């Protein structure tokens, strides 16, 4: 058992012990390591100014937000910051294309853009737009940055070759109240013994609470070193997803299997967030606007909950008892998620103020089984209209057995509207959400059935 965190920054090993290990990587870089190229702006993983590259073991370097990443999460990783890029082709192109104006977002952009060239020598416009969704620029209007990426010369050296060093991470680590065990048994025992223990995986939400709500958990547990939870595999008509599987890995794995869900994950969040956050984390966080949840509801996903007394399986609809209230015992963790592949007619919706990288005002999943122009069964889940994601039993019952027509779906929309009681908040008014609850059904009719 080690009592400190070990990681590499631009090839050099750093060791941090004690309370200092709970600092964010961005603060550590700027205030302790005198590497001020990495900028801090929003401290919530939404602007990308703090982007650095991270690599675990032999994987590729991928971009993450260092402002919501604590050092405790970094054991065994290799980090590359803007200072470590070595004036590469991306940086040269950004200079030539006027990709930097005020320069404050620029380190984050060149780091994120450099990541695109780790796996290819040339990028297309879609890759660039998707790859830079998590970086905000207020000066350029993005056009010069897009051009810089599209015209950059192939890298003379990949960063994985420039920084080939790796660092072992197969040893359990205990730093003050933080524990990263290597076995599931140790994890659940720690959780049982530490009331109020918070699990930190990507910490894409916990990191924000720490920065903005002075959140301090009595104990923190990482499952990241438990190799069996890295599991990601096909299981007949479902995909089994271990607790350590990031949203990026999940997204890539289901691309052809569940294209609808892939489409939602594509606009779900930035690469930085998806490289850190996990599917299990999205479920555990239990936000009523979690973007993966409506699909999991209509697909009938199951959670494998592991505790000190063994494991049990809970249907996702039963897991949520109220706003951020869960059917989860103090010693339990979400070990795996079984995500069925839906073969029926299916459509997922996400409505937000900005299409990409915005927290939803409203989400929906609509699943139909039909024969000869008739609906056999309908399964509908809405997010953003109640304290949890909800199914719509009255609407589902109404649709069952009906002939497919615009009128049917307009009526279903009115029933759906009567089934939900949304609230007004910063993301949208109650009327707006109620109208969306109604409109999404005729929209589904036109887009999928008409």
């Amino acid at each position: 058992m080690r009592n400190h965190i070990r990681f590499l920054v631009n090839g050099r090993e750093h060791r941090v012990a004690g309370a200092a290990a709970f600092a964010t990587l961005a603060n550590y870089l700027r205030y302790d390591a005198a590497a001020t190229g990495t900028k801090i702006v929003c401290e919530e993983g939404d602007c990308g100014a703090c982007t650095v590259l991270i690599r675990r073991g032999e994987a590729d370097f991928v971009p993450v937000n260092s402002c919501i990443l604590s050092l405790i999460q970094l054991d065994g990783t290799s980090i590359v910051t803007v200072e470590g890029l070595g004036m590469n082709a991306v940086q040269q192109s950004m200079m030539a294309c006027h990709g930097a104006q005020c320069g404050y977002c620029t380190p984050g952009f060149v780091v994120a853009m450099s990541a695109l060239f780790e796996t290819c020598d040339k990028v297309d416009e879609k890759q660039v737009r998707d790859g830079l969704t998590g970086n905000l620029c207020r000066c350029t209007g993005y056009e010069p940055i897009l051009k810089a990426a599209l015209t950059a010369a192939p890298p003379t050296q990949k960063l994985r070759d420039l920084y080939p060093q790796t660092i072992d991470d197969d040893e359990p680590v205990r730093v003050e109240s933080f524990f990263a065990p290597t076995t599931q048994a140790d994890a659940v025992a720690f959780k049982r013994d530490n009331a109020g223990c918070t699990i930190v995986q990507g910490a894409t939400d916990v990191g924000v609470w720490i920065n903005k709500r002075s959140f301090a958990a009595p104990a923190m547990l990482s499952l990241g070193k438990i190799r069996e939870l890295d599991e990601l595999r096909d299981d007949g008509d479902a995909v089994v997803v271990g607790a350590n599987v990031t949203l990026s890995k999940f997204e890539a794995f289901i691309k052809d299997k569940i294209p609808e869900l892939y489409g939602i994950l594509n606009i779900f969040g930035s690469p930085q967030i998806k490289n850190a956050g996990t599917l299990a984390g999205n479920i555990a966080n239990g936000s009523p606007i979690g973007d993966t949840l409506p699909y999991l509801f209509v697909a009938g996903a199951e959670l494998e909950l592991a505790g000190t007394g063994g494991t049990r399986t809970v249907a996702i609809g039963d897991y949520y008892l109220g706003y951020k209230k869960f059917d989860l015992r103090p010693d339990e963790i979400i070990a795996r998620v079984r995500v069925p592949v839906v073969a029926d007619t299916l459509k997922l919706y996400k409505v937000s103020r900005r299409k990409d990288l915005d927290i939803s005002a409203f989400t929906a999943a609509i699943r139909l089984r039909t024969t000869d122009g008739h609906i056999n069964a309908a399964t509908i889940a809405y997010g953003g209209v109640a304290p949890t994601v909800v199914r719509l039993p009255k609407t589902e019952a109404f649709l069952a057995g009906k002939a497919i027509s615009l009128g049917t779906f307009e009526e279903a929309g009115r029933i759906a509207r009567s089934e939900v009681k949304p609230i007004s908040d910063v993301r949208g008014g109650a009327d707006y959400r109620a109208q969306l609850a109604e409109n999404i059904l005729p929209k589904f009719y036109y887009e999928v059935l008409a």
Partner: protein
Amino acid sequence: MTSVGRNVPHDSARGHVSGESIYIDDMPPARGELVVDFVWSPVAHGRIRAIDLDAARRIDGVVALLTHRDLHHNKFGPIIQDELLLAEDVVTFIGQPIVVIAAESRAALRAAKLSIAVDIETLEPVFTIDEAKRRKQFIGSTMHIVRGDVESAFAGAKHILEGQFTNGGQDHFYLEGQAAIAVPGEFDQVAVHSSTQNPSEVQHVIAHLLGLQINQVTVVTKRMGGGFGGKECQATHPAAIAALVAHKTKRPARLVYNKDDDMRVTGGRHPFQNDWKVAFDDDGAITALFVDFYSDGGAFADLSTSVLGRALTHAENAYYIPNAEIHGTVCRTNHAPNTAFRGFGGPQGVINIENILECIAVALGKDALDVRIRNCYGIGERNTTPYGQVVANNTLPRLFREITASSDYRARRKAVDEFNAQSPTRLRGLACSAVKFGISFNTKFLNQANALVNVYLDGSVQVSTGATEMGQGVNTKIRQLVADELGLDVAQVILMPTSTEKNNNTSATAASSAADLNGSAAVDACRKIRARMCGVAADYFARTAGLEPSSEHIVFSDGEIFDDRAPQQRVPFAALAKMCHLERVSLGERGFYATKGLDWDADRGCGTPFLYFTMGCAVSEVEIDRFTGMMKVLRSDLLMDIGKSINPGIDRGQITGAFVQGMGWLTTEELRYAPDGELLSHSPTTYKIPNIQDLPPVFHVSTIDNDTNTVNIRGSKAVGEPPLLLGISVWLAVKNALAYESHGAIPQLRAPATGEEILRLLTEYKAARVEVASAAAS
């Protein structure tokens, strides 16, 4: 080879891409440095009953707790001196600083902030323009621009429309928050590093508030991580607070706002609510316009009256209005004081008239582009603004003509008609808008600048001006101008941090005019140095080539100097510099520039406030989801007249960046408040500026050739603000799309056109359609 007109990279580009560029909070802490924060008012309007600092005083590491009593003066303001640095007995907005905390660590600072209790009796707040109007709670006096006989024109009008238009505010969302470090010096002097667009104002305010002479305060600005107007006046507060701490504790002090605090405690673009009335003929020609602008100034005056003044002088935009009556009043509310924001009232004035033109088009069943062209300023006639300035060198008709063709507007209009007729799920809209933006500060005395140019013995050059660099590339342009004047490569010239020590009494870097003013001043300095160097060179060539000494024949080119009568004999610039030094000829100079020909009578609302106009047109097409209201821009074409560009790459970046910022203001950027006035959208999670996916998939940006702007430096035109107003074309395209669904009614679209706002109108139209259908059925 001349460097002016070339695509020279930004002078900080290498530092920006490598992370080496230094911003305030990148500077290493000095010995004994304190970190600073403040406790602010949690209520929008209230009376302070008591402040309990006892618990904070006991916290280890807390060095100072300061209130307004620790200031020599507490009141300041750029135009009207109504602003308090620290609240006294009454608080007037959420975020207003009350108690300054200085501590040795961030942990102590946080603990102290949480431990300070301010007991406030809540008073009734004012959050809306309507409520402020009802209470007659205004800032400054109502402004007017009047021309012709509006009353008769309305009396004899063929058509009249009237309405009310509202636009929302906008957060600057510069990436680097407000920041300052103050370092105490000898004899009460203080040096301040400030992320400000206006070092002189920061200097003057600090001296005033601390009871110092202005010469005891030095303010230095290396660069800003974005400004957009947000650091024109409101960078002063953190700098003054840090200076207060340094002054009181005799220790360096650092104050850096985090993003959430920055968005809450600073103001932004002014929301407006305007009552308007327009008279027009059958062909859409406007015969009379009445506009009564009301802006939400927030709690203090800041620059609000000046911002409103620019709205008034842009109320007609690119269109000739024979009879006009334009009024404007700033409302005092309990929001954070609103301030300068790229465009400075121009966008609010322009969107108002562009909206009216769109309304006229709907009312007449015409294409709005034709209504615009019908009303566009003429050449040689119909070319005087309501305030009396002649629109000289008018390229607007040409811009309209060229963009109509280059954007394929007419064919796309047909395509949009057809698309909307057949698509049950989506709706498209197409619109063209124009901009005619007046260049010069409306306030005459601000149109001056000074510059310091030093030539060193190796021929390298340092330039210092009052311009501040916030990414817009002003330093790069001045570098090019100086290099050109001295016949040098840009590599020989460095722009130094802006400092009040080198350039005194400077104007803000604002009004798009920093390169015009400071570039001209730098050129003036170069010409004086060059004249002296010419004298030395003339004597040298006279001696060595046997010529009659003549400065007129001396040429500076490509780093060398020669007499054009004996061009084979050349002296490197460095050698001539050394020669001058040995001859005891000064190699340093201060240049000065004051814009000629300006004349503005604000009281009468007439005169010539602008040296020239920057012009442009844009065409945007949008697509709306009929069920969710979600909108995307399919294509935007921008065409601008920016004269002869000093740096086409930098100017293009200003155009693309400003357009996207303007589009953001009118689409996704919505400031949402709780009923008690607390800003809810105070970080990028909830306040959505455009991201890279919002850049239109088809985006054409071009400029026309125009070498007629001889009144400005090298025939160039200012470009910082004008293209922001082209973002209005996106909002107009949304309005146009909705007009396809509104059954002939004029869509009452507010700005910003969020998905929620669009769906509100679509739902309204659908309900009306159902009503009509059921009435017909019964």
